């Protein structure tokens, strides 16, 4: 746990840098009202803070040494590529030896509950397999450039392997090549990377999952009525797949269902709620609304509740406490959950398997589940729900 304490030290030292800068300025301010002397005294501020920082830096460099030493074992796995699409799961054995290999994971988001669940899965698998991980993601799923920077720096860390969920595959292509050149195996997760370089992709089949949601919607409505879609965005793969999977199933299997034009709320709860309310206002005969991710689904629940209209069937996607509550209270019929914990686990497991030289399947389906009031407390479901 040495590297962990060194990180804490570095954080503390850097936080102190900011505070010290301020404190020194304060000191120079009150010490003298002279313009000339203030310039010289406040110039001492960074110097003082560097003293504070250097304490943390020594221990921190020790931690980074451990990360780099793991990279030697990476070369074995990177040459082999997945040969079949068979759904065989990787089964790595725990890593042994003095230093733990570092797996740098760059996801599509960070503070969102879903990505935190992926992180939790990755963390637990890493502990189990004896590797260390870092987990980062841009503030929103539109921040392609920030993700590119994060991936650049992940490669600069010289990790043993990289887990990556691309916001834009083409933008990431040169970096993929760079990782390949440095013999760092790359495991794609969530919505894959459009490239030959990743050894495998651990992801949900979003189209199939959305079709499952459509099936439950149709069943609940008896195969007829107006249904609206509140989708999180129209540019990402997950947004389009979850829209198209739902729409296509309905067109093929439920001729009595009249679909309204999909609306996009950016996954923002408040915006999605407003969209849901305006749909209800415009279509008093609306029978069902589908929200395509957590933010959209919670927004739909809010919108339906606030509008006060009864008898609208709401189906959501992903989980989170608000959706779980809505299902328990009956406002929401049910939802599709991906298996974010599983995505995290499979990503790390695949990376370790690659390090051990195992052959990986092209796609690892991490699965999805339909859950509603009847099975929400089922331990199998509880395990994949995040709050």
């Amino acid at each position: 746990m040495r590297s962990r304490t060194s990180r804490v030290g570095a954080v503390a030292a850097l936080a102190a840098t900011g505070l010290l800068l301020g404190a020194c300025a304060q000191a120079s301010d009150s010490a003298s009202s002279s313009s000339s002397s203030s310039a010289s005294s406040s110039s001492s501020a960074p110097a003082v803070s560097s003293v504070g920082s250097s304490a943390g830096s020594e221990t921190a460099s020790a931690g980074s040494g451990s990360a780099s030493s793991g990279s030697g074992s990476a070369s074995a796995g990177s040459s082999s590529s997945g040969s079949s699409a068979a759904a065989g799961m990787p089964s790595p054995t725990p890593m042994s030896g003095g230093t733990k290999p570092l797996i740098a994971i760059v996801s599509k988001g960070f503070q969102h509950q879903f990505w935190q669940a992926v992180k939790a899965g990755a963390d637990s698998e890493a502990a189990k397999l004896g590797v260390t991980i870092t987990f980062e993601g841009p503030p929103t799923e539109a921040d392609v450039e920030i993700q590119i920077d994060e991936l650049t720096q992940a490669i600069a860390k010289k990790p043993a392997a990289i887990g990556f969920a691309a916001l834009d595959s083409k933008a990431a292509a040169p970096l993929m090549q760079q990782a390949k050149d440095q013999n760092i195996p790359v495991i794609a997760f969530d919505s894959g990377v459009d490239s030959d370089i990743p050894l495998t992709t651990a992801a949900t089949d979003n189209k199939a999952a959305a079709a499952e949601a459509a099936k439950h919607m149709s069943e609940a409505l008896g195969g007829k009525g107006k249904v609206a879609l509140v989708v999180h965005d129209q540019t990402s793969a997950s947004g389009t797949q979850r829209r198209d999977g739902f729409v296509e199933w309905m067109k093929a299997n439920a001729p009595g269902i009249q679909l309204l034009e999909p609306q996009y709320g950016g996954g923002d709860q408040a915006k999605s709620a407003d969209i849901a309310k305006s749909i209800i206002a415009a279509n008093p005969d609306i029978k069902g609304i589908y929200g395509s991710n957590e933010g959209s689904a919670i927004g739909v629940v809010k919108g339906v509740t606030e509008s006060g209209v009864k008898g609208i069937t709401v189906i959501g996607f992903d989980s989170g406490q608000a959706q779980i509550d809505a299902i328990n209270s009956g406002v929401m019929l049910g939802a599709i959950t991906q298996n974010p914990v599983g995505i995290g686990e499979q990503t790390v497991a695949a990376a370790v398997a690659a390090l051990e030289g195992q052959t990986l399947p092209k796609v690892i389906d991490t699965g999805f589940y339909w859950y509603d009031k009847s099975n929400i407390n089922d331990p199998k479901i509880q395990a994949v729900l995040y709050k």
Partner: protein
Amino acid sequence: MSVPLDAPTGRSAAGAATATNLLEVVGVSKGFPGVKALQDMHLTLRPGEVLALVGENGAGKSTLMKLLSGIYQPDGGEFFFEGGPFTPTDPKHAQESGISIIHQEFNLMPDLTVAQNIFIGREPRSGGFFLSDRALNRKAGELLRRLELPLDPRQLVGTLTVAKQQMVEIAKALSYDARVLIMDEPTAALNDAEVATLHSLIRRFVTPQTGVIYISHKMDELKAISDRITVIRDGRYVDTLDTATSTMGDVISRMVGREIDTDARPENVRPDRPVLLSVEGLSTRTLLKDVSFELREGEILGLAGLMGAGRTEVARALVGADAVTAGTVRLRGEPVSVRTPADAAALGIGYLSEDRKQFGLLLSQTVNANIGLSSLGDRFSSAGFVKDRPMRAASREYVESLRIRTPSINQTAKNLSGGNQQKVVISKWLLKDCDILIFDEPTRGIDVGAKEEIYRLLNRLAEEGKSIIMISSELPEVLRMSHRIVVMSEGRVTGELSAAEADQESVMHLATLRPDENPEDAAELGIQLPVEKDHA
């Protein structure tokens, strides 16, 4: 603490030895890097008196006030207040101890009412939490009645005149049970009637337990209100005079350390000098009505009038800062259209605002940037690039020839004293090489010595053939400087006097005509009043 030989008279004066002085400043010093702002300062305020404090700009008056209110801490020396040592820590402490300072720039919130302003920070509460407007207004009402101030506690301060805002400041100060009231240039923006009201208020305030320190440049006011006059110069105590037994010459000679030579009144400009600027029927939506006058080459035209007569508005309209609804402006006989200050500057008309900080200076920029501002575009640039070397040389030249006291042309303008800031603004327009310069209150807030320099400068400019419009509220200044005087009242020109015919009485007579209210005045001026007024 040694007492210098020329220490204040308070201690040695017969009878005063036993009486406790209300406020004493003993040997106080305060330095800033490169400047000794105060050195061994002495001052004695006796109970029941109004002590005038005079000194040129930069003499140390503001520093002394800031020390007394605890904004600065002295490097040495002591204060005594009501007999005991007094070390103010901050303005609130000073105020609560009984020393209130009314600054030239008011500390009032225009969007709050009179009562809210007076009791800000001390609002009466009901139930310990909620504000009680009723109690607040009642308290303020009582205070205002006691002080005989004609103010409504509920009125918004922003809607009051400057004089009434000052009353609010005074009421606020006195609500703290102040025993010492320090007023910095309290009459700078007041008209004569308002000054009289202020003075009677001060007299009512002074009791055997209280005293007033009155800082002013205006000598006639000192005569009217003060008991004694303390003169300081260059951060040092100079002398204290009994007002009754001393002349203004005594005071001024101590302030400047030399006698002032009063120039002779100027001769009229010969009428054969060509008319440079002629203004006909200038009107604006709010104030100006049918303003007409001419300005000859090499002439200093005084624009006189009471506060609100429209003099500044004429200047702003002439340079295109305010919109004009009617009127023709001719420059060398040719009608010109001035819609923006840029048009005016291009025609060679420069305006030096009365409010330097708001309209004249770039406070956060260097002296060099300020001096060059107007002429950068046409004289010190080529293809959009600034020619720095000649620009800086020109700035240095003006700093030297106008004797602007600044360590360098890279000094930030806000660090200069008022007089030097004014010189920077003047330099800006001189460098622009304008033919017509409009000076609005050119010597406001400027010390006596610097005033003389600016007067000489104006005369020199006129001799060089520049035409000057000088707006001034100080009648002696207008009379002394102007070749010709145009007098305004209520947005109209009420008369024009040559230097020979003008004196205080004749100017004041014209300045107080009210043609729009008084038909006799209108008749005297031959003004045809609008028809609907005739019916009324």
